[in-house]
């Protein structure tokens, strides 16, 4: 079992990106690559091989689920663990997210002080 150290974070809202960077990089000690859109994320892995992918769901043009599907077509990321961070957390939605093969769903607003811990524990319980 390798430790989760490299996080690919996809989020279209710049303010939330800033908070996520602080939460994961400064407080969590991850190596973080943050992307502002799905297409940007799909292009990223060639230079950044993430241990886990964290995605916002509701994004313009390419949403979180499509982005995840695209990422999984990239060589080496076929089975990369993924977590959705979303403001849309009705039971039906959560059910659909899980069908996309994510190991967890984190609800917005999230607590930046504990976000890194949350991701680490999801990764651990998923056996990454």
């Amino acid at each position, binding site marked *: 079992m390798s430790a989760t150290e490299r996080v690919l974070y996809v989020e279209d*809202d710049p*303010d*939330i990106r800033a*908070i*996520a960077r*602080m*939460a994961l990089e*400064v*407080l969590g000690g991850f190596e973080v690559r943050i992307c502002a859109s799905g297409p940007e994320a799909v292009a990223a892995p060639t230079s950044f091989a993430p241990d886990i992918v964290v995605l916002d769901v*509701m994004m313009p043009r390419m949403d979180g689920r499509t982005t995840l599907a695209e990422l999984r077509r990239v060589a080496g990321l076929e089975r990369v663990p993924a977590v959705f961070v979303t*403001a*849309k957390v*009705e*039971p039906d939605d959560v059910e659909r997210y899980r069908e996309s093969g994510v190991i967890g769903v984190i609800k*917005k*607003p*999230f*607590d*930046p*002080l504990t976000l890194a811990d949350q991701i680490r524990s999801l990764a651990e319980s998923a056996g990454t």
Partner: protein
Amino acid sequence: MDAISSLASIVPAIVLELGSDGVVRYANDYLEEVTGFAPSDVIGRHWLTEFVPEHDRSRVSEVFEGAVSGAATRGNVNEVLTSDGGRRSIQWNDRALTDELGATVGILAVGVDVTEQMQQRRELERNRSLLDEAQRLARIGVWEYDFVNDELWWSDEIVELFGLRGRPTIPSYDDFMSVVHPDDRRLVVGCYKQGMETREPYRVAHRLLTPDGRTSWVEERVATVFGPDGTPSIVRGTVQDISERLEMGREIALKDAALENASTPIVIGDAEYRLMYANAAFLAAWRAASVEQVMALTPRDLWVYERDEVADEVRSMLSGGRPWTGEVTALRLDGTAFPAELSGALIHDETGAVTYVIGAFNDLTDRVEADRVKSEFLSMVSHELRTPLTAIDGALRLVTGGVVGALSDDARQYLTAALRNTRRLTHLIDQLLISERIASGHFAVSVRPTPLRPLVVGLVEAHQPYGADRGVRVELVGDVPDATVETDGERFEQVLTNILSNAIKFSPDGGVVRVSVNVDDLAATIEVADDGPGIPAEYHHTIFDRFTQIDGTDSRAVGGTGLGLSIAKALADQLGVGIGLRSSVGVGTTFSLTVPRTRTGQSSDPELPG
């Protein structure tokens, strides 16, 4: 006397000579033919007391006294006993017998046997009174016109129908025409003339305007009898009052029109659920070109229930005499479908047997669409609000968490207030969303055996830090029994959470919220007691409504959304959890939740009989 005797021996009549004392002095042989008594049986015996039955005796005695005092009496009929114990009816003509000095010495009575005629007359009278009664009950009158003798006769019921009671008139054609409604006279005369020409019986319905000002409807049936020479000899008819029947018919026609023009689709089936009728609204909603198109189908072709078994449930409910209302999917004839609410009911006849089944539909398309739009809107709003809240909340948490450096006390105080309010806003959005989902029936619950202890202990512990923030102690009183309850663990937690946080919010600084659990064979009861201000009695029935506020308290001051208890109640209702409230102003409030226990052995196979 000899001449009289010989005459008396040959007339076909009884001849009696009675003394003024009533004793028989003479009787002819004919007496024996009628009564079986020979003259020798009666001579010397008292006629009245020995040969007249008791019920006729006083009447006959009066006639006898009259005859003795000189009055000739004719045509009186009385019964006479016969030798075989029977009776015969005899019609008498009497006259007094006098001596040479003119004094009455007895009477001579000549009697004719009228027994058969009397029987026929009684029979006739009975028939006549039965006919009269039948006419009266059916409100049918009969009449007859004899062309030969130019005589019109009609029955009492006609007098009644024509409102001519109390007018002593001989029936006449003019009397009849006077009560026919003026507007209908031409019709009545026309029909009569036509009937004479065609020689066929006919019927005509027309109005009567009776002398008392009443208008009624009658039906006449008329038939004419023609003589051998082709001229009419007798015309007979009946007149029946049909006002009531018409009124009923009119009422039925009215209801028919109401049914046909109702905007609600309605179908009627027979006791076997075969379709018999569909109104215009049904044909339109199902896009059927004709009623025949619908009648060729079965209910199963026209709508389906959520599950197949519901159809059986509906039948059994209806046959139990209970109406049924529920949602179905209506299947249009063009292959499309729409959601509908179906209300079904059975119609029974006076013996209680099912005669018809009626179904009325309510198209739910608009409601379902409105629900969808509302739900989508709320979902969108909640997402659009949460995104900026994530940035605000995240930033505040980072700053107040000391991540970006130390804060002055003032800065910390203000930023903490800001953070607290973003949390409240988030909470409010969550609650609104849940509340809306419950209200629209989109909040699924899944009831299964759930261990109670970890749930209650976990929730109490989870609320202790929140209580501590407000200076409120949250404690478990006594043991939590190790029971299993029938509920949806996640939803039940939500109910208990809302009750607990409500208790904490309304507790004073230094207050205590006590949680206790009691179980009996059937249920577990969880009580949450606070020592807050209490809820005045007049609010007890509205406290579970959305956004209820009690005068003098401001739920916002304690961070409430006004939705917590309404959500708890709605969820509890959905779970079959009883929710109770005891409260005294100034003492505190106790909420109780009663949740059914899982019956032991519930999951094991039932024992097979034998």
